[in-house]
């Protein structure tokens, strides 16, 4: 689906990347821990998160994330916004909580960017 449709489903505001709304996305990853994102998120996915600091943008850039959706109506700092502009990563904000955000997108056909994690117990 196009990013413009994601925006509609989530009643989201576009903070950065109005010109990239016809970007195609199929998968998503939701987390508030950047280490979790780094462990599992895939290139080209949507990142849904409740964090708004600049490390969210840096993490997205490291992983080639397609776009970031900030949940719970979070407003990012100017620094975060500027970094998203610099890296050309679309940044949207929705009032919905992560549960609702993920639920709505999943219902419209967006799937998780990974199927399953079979074994994630403490490493040796």
């Amino acid at each position: 689906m196009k990013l413009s449709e994601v925006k509609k489903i989530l009643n989201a505001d576009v903070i950065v990347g109005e010109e990239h709304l016809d970007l195609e996305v199929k998968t998503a990853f939701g987390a508030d821990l950047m280490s979790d994102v780094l462990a599992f998120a895939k290139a080209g996915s949507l990142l849904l998160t409740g964090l708004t600091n600049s490390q969210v943008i840096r993490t997205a850039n490291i992983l080639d994330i397609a776009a970031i959706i900030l949940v719970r109506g979070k407003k990012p700092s100017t620094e975060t916004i500027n970094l998203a502009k610099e890296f050309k990563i679309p940044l949207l904000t929705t009032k919905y909580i992560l549960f609702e955000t993920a639920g709505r997108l999943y219902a419209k056909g967006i799937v998780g960017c990974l199927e399953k994690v079979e074994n994630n117990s403490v490493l040796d």
Partner: protein
Amino acid sequence: MNLETIVKEFGLEVRCAPENLKNNVTGGYTGDLLSDVIANSREGYIWITRQVHQNIVAVASLKEHAGIILINSCEPSRETLEKASQEKIPIMVSSLSAFELTGKIYNLLGKKD
């Protein structure tokens, strides 16, 4: 809808407090920031997270959550399990990601309400 329905539907593995699977689930909250979960989740919610630290039990108990589901096959720490058993908070484990599991539970809750 009670927890047991969700456990069966998505093949969750119950790690403790199976006696409380009759808990009624009124909604869901997905998140890993404890202060956010304390501020914004509600009583009867099922909490979906990848935090495994024992503090999750205190939060779930405080907010009277129906239970906690750990995603990505994350296992609760020993202290977490001990506390959750004492407080009778069911902890369940899923191999799905937070996004997938949330999507599925959201749809299920929507259907039955």
